[in-house]
């Protein structure tokens, strides 16, 4: 149970990464490095060489702000989009409806998606970016005029406003394919095609790879911790099983004396051990799951953080405990039965 907790919470970090930046699954972000004049040439290359049909190519601006995560602030992009592109962007990212309205051309206004609003605890009319905010800087206060109902995380402003107020003054662009498979093909092709060139690509699969790598070490540490924990728990439970079996020995001695075979009793004992452990495991997992759900509701959902309460790896981890207890349990049972004399029980030398 404890282990399911630790693992689920640990997993929630990379899971959150993937949730927060999930929008990038539907496009490839491209920025020229160093030379803003490269942009048209890069666009040209995409138009000519891209192996899958491009649904739309959106030239825009981008700057960064932060969102809150379990492990501190994470950078998040503020896009500056032209009115038509902004409409397209919202639709492409599953916006079902908008509370309020989209930013007016040229004005310091922003629209954020619902998870972002929840994460930053923002309402309509609140200031999203401003001159007094170091992490979310803008020379003029930017007010929220709309909240988009979408599961994806988005912060969008008007292109004209963005050009006037944000650094760097570089045109970037987003390349959208028609669907996720084609997008993935496009992303892989682009990463390969522009290797070594002065371009920076933002592809979802790269993000995924980086995240996984980042957490690989953490997971190794986690594994060591869990293994130690498992060893301790298994040993403890094994000892408990041992005590329990010792008590049952009187019963088994009597049954063996009146004619049960050793094998029958062994099977019975192992069966009981297994049932006890299996029940314990199921109960533990159910309780852990419920507690995770509570934790999610109380602590995480208000900030729109991700947590997979049915995280399969977390529950896979919990399997280690019952299996090792089972192993220790079986071992003790076998050991006890190997040299066991029912006479010592009916003669009352035990107990």
């Amino acid at each position, binding site marked *: 149970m404890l282990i399911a907790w630790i693992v689920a919470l640990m997993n929630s970090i990379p899971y959150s990464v993937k949730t927060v930046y999930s929008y990038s699954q539907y496009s490839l972000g491209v920025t020229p490095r160093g030379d803003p004049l490269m942009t048209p040439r890069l666009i040209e290359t995409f138009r000519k060489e891209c192996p899958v049909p491009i649904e739309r190519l959106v030239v825009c601006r981008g700057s960064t702000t932060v969102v809150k995560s379990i492990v501190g602030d994470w950078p998040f992009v503020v896009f500056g989009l032209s009115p038509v592109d902004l409409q397209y962007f919202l639709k492409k990212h599953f916006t079902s409806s908008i509370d309020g309205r989209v930013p007016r051309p040229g004005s310091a206004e922003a629209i954020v998606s619902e998870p972002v609003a929840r994460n930053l605890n923002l309402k309509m009319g609140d200031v999203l970016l401003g001159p007094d905010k170091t992490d979310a800087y803008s020379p003029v206060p930017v007010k929220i005029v709309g909240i988009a109902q979408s599961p994806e995380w988005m912060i969008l402003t008007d292109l004209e406003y963005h050009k006037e107020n944000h650094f760097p003054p570089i045109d970037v662009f987003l390349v959208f394919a028609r669907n996720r498979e084609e997008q993935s093909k496009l992303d892989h092709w682009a990463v390969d095609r522009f290797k070594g060139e002065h371009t920076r690509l933002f592809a979802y699969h790269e993000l995924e790879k980086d995240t996984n790598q980042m957490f690989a070490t953490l997971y190794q540490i986690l594994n060591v911790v869990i293994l130690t924990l498992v060893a301790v728990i298994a040993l403890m439970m094994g000892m408990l099983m041992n005590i329990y079996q010792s008590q049952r020995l009187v019963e088994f001695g009597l049954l063996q*004396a009146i*004619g049960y075979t*050793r094998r029958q009793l062994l099977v019975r004992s192992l069966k009981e051990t297994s049932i006890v452990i299996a029940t314990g495991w199921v109960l533990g997992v159910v309780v852990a799951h419920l507690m995770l759900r509570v934790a999610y509701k109380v602590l995480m959902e208000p900030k729109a953080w991700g947590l997979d309460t049915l995280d399969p790896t977390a529950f896979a981890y919990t399997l280690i405990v019952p299996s090792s207890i089972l192993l220790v349990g079986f071992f003790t049972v076998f050991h006890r039965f190997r040299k066991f004399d029912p*006479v010592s029980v009916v003669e009352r030398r035990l107990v």
Partner: protein
Amino acid sequence: MIESVGASLVYEDHGREVFACRDVSLSVRPGEFLGILGPSGSGKSSLLYLLSGLKTPSFGAVLYDERDLASMSDEERSRLRRREFGFVFQQPYLLGYLTALENAFVGEPTSARRDEALDLLDRLGLGAKAHRQPHELSGGERQRVCVARALLGEPRVIFADEPTASLDHTNGLQVVGMLNAMRGDGALVMVTHDPSMLERADRVVNLVDGQLVRHGE
């Protein structure tokens, strides 16, 4: 039916050999009541374990219907104890989580045996208490449940190791009387240090320091 041929049982006691039984040759005949009489520590229990196959002799052999018990597998010996033998031990051991009735047919939990067990308890005067837990029974009542357990399935031999040790004299005599009356065609081998319990025995052998001293045959 059961025959021990020069059977000895040796215990290891701090590197010293202790003969619990020494060179015992004894036969149990079908349907008889055989009493084994001896003082404490004379090896009575040990002899009973040898005869019933719960222990294997260190020297000599114990034959059941001409077959050496030691040559049988654990399974075979278990089957014998289950189907052909009945046991009443010194202490009235019952399983605490079962009722008197369930304890009586724990050796073979089938519905036919259940009816038989109920009938046995009835005849032992426990019909009304068949559904009680062991801790709700007196010592004598518990030992009677054990007697029912031993009698279940009409065994060919019933082994009783001081079945009266935990009871007062009257209760003891009553239990022995019931065992004797209800054993049917089965033989009864009973071990005790109290000669008065063996008044109805067909035959009594004396055991002293693990050795037989024959008389009264």
